[in-house]
């Protein structure tokens, strides 16, 4: 892509983040996944979106989307305050039916979509012409997958034996 085109799309992407909350109240999120612990960064709507994403990124039967969402929230809090704020906006952008309609002809909020349509919404982010949406897809995907595979109980299923026993040289 030519640099000028990238810049134009980048600016549009930035504007989208700013508009991420526009119209959210018209069709409220489905709060299927309620937090189990006190939230430090996200609100309940953002948490529900994140947990819904986690349920699609990790489809293993033992995956717990609510726990994954809690762990992702903890990880995001290591970042700069501005990055944390961008992450909240990203979740709102994914949920937003107004933006979904504008960009993907998908007016329903993410949390109200059936699983196959949620996958399609994530793929629309992945394949978007907007770098911001592609980067956002990867951020969500990586954070939730990392939260799942950091759990020791998942390792045997990969054939990963875990760390070796160690002996400290004297």
């Amino acid at each position, binding site marked *: 892509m030519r640099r000028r085109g*990238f810049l134009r799309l980048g600016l549009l992407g930035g504007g989208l983040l700013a508009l991420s909350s526009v119209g959210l109240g018209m069709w409220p999120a489905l709060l299927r996944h309620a937090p189990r612990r006190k939230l430090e960064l996200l609100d309940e709507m953002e948490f529900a979106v994140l947990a819904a994403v986690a349920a699609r*990124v990790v489809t293993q039967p033992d995956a717990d989307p609510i726990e994954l969402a809690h762990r992702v929230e903890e990880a995001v809090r290591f970042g700069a305050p501005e990055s944390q704020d961008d992450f909240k906006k990203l979740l709102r952008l994914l949920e937003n039916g107004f933006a979904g309609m504008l960009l993907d002809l998908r007016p329903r909020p993410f949390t109200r979509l059936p699983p196959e349509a949620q996958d399609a919404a994530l793929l629309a982010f992945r394949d978007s012409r907007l*770098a911001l949406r592609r980067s956002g897809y*990867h951020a969500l995907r990586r954070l939730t997958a990392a939260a799942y595979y950091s759990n020791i109980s998942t390792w045997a299923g990969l054939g990963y034996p875990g760390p070796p026993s160690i002996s400290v040289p004297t």
Partner: protein
Amino acid sequence: MSAPGGFVDAGTVGTGKKYTPEVCIIGSGAGGAVSAALLTAAGHDVLVVEEGGHRTRKDFNMREDVAFAQLYQEGATRATKDLGITLLQGRTVGGTTVVNWTTCFRTPDPVLDHWRDRHGVRGLTSADLAPHFAAVEERLSIAEIPLADSNRNNRLLYDGCKALGLEATPTKRNVKQCMKSGYCGMGCPVDAKQSMLITYLPDAVARGATVLYRCRIERLEIEGGRVVRARGQVLGGPSGRTPTGEVVVIEAKRFLVSAGAINSPALLLRSGLGGADTPIGRRTFLHPVVGITGHYKDLVEPYYGAPQSIASHALAHRGADVGLFLEAAPIHPVIASTALPGFGDAHRRGMIELPNTAAHIALAIDGFSPDEPGGTVTLRPSGAALVDYPIPPRIWEAFRFGLRKLAEIDLAAGADVVRTGHDPSIEVRSVADLAKIDAAAYDVGRVSVFSAHQMGGCAMGPDPKTAVVRPEDLRHHSVENLHVVDGSVFPTSLGVNPQESIYGLAHLTATRLHASWGQSG
């Protein structure tokens, strides 16, 4: 010899605590630790300040999630502005040397020549550096790893290169009695890695230096062309990253900033040294990395063994095009889960192949073309560093070339399928499929890119319009008692893993500073 100093938690010293050392070194990684050891050995009174915690072998439990949270900048979530490049960088006593993969190279002669010819860097020849590299190599037990000790991930890279007639050689590593566990990136659990944590920092402490950790320097106060004091925030909380409200004040005669190529320029900017006419935070280089995974019928176990023991520089010199060097990357479950493309069942299929997967990477050698400005470091409203690195077309072209070469190498080594870091992945099962890599899209978010080598941002050079510090002593051009001693002073990237270049340059600079200070008193 002075009385021993110590490693001191800033949370225990009481708010408002004032230190008055002769030398304050900000950052305890490769540049800061070597400087601290040499200066204390020469009789200087040194305080080292580190924002990370003091984690040691007992804390290194070989778990990625624990290591990322405790030992990495922003919990390993740091990235460039457009999230196009993930930035891996240490944040602990010892800095990135605690979590790197132990690969050591001296600064290549062509790089030093380029710095002399294009950036006016005098007094930094291989002959100038040689005794300092030799001293560092002895202290850190830097030695070549025998080819027979390579793990299969590295051996496949070697075999594939050789099958194609490409140069590939064993690397040097800074280890002693290494058990080759494969967990260097999570902190060495047996203290085999000769990181700053167990070498130059204890050397400095034994001679009287204090290492004050969990203290972030917010700004340097500059009056009359001198730094008069540094103000630090004490960090605490469960993550060790939350300001407690306590402050530390340091009034030193001299200040060395060694906070790395992202945090050093950010500190200088927070201290009011930026502006349109200064190059602080410009020409940031990252050795941006793309990679492939190769699936093999036999076990590879890319998580065990010395993470990096083979490197190829066969593609480093590509005429007018951006060069590349090739290495292996260790992959454990969490890194694998972030590197493998897709989600849901597609992602899972890649994950369950982990034991049979090799991971090989191509690192772009950025900064050597006049039309390649690199990235920038600026400040976010909160004062945190913001790295912007728009990947130029020249580097996208290098990625395309590098991924194709890596795929050829893994096919030659016997992989039955090679996958690029695109999402969706490009699958290569035979030479006939290589054209798919050429035809793929290359853009932010289309292919995975990361960086573990941050350089530049406070470049050395004789001209204050284009350089932040003087080459001869890494002194700031207009602040007389401020030096920058870390990888941020490199005018370009290196084309090799940077740790030894930082050690060598710090060793040389500390030697020169002592000689200079001895004269000036």
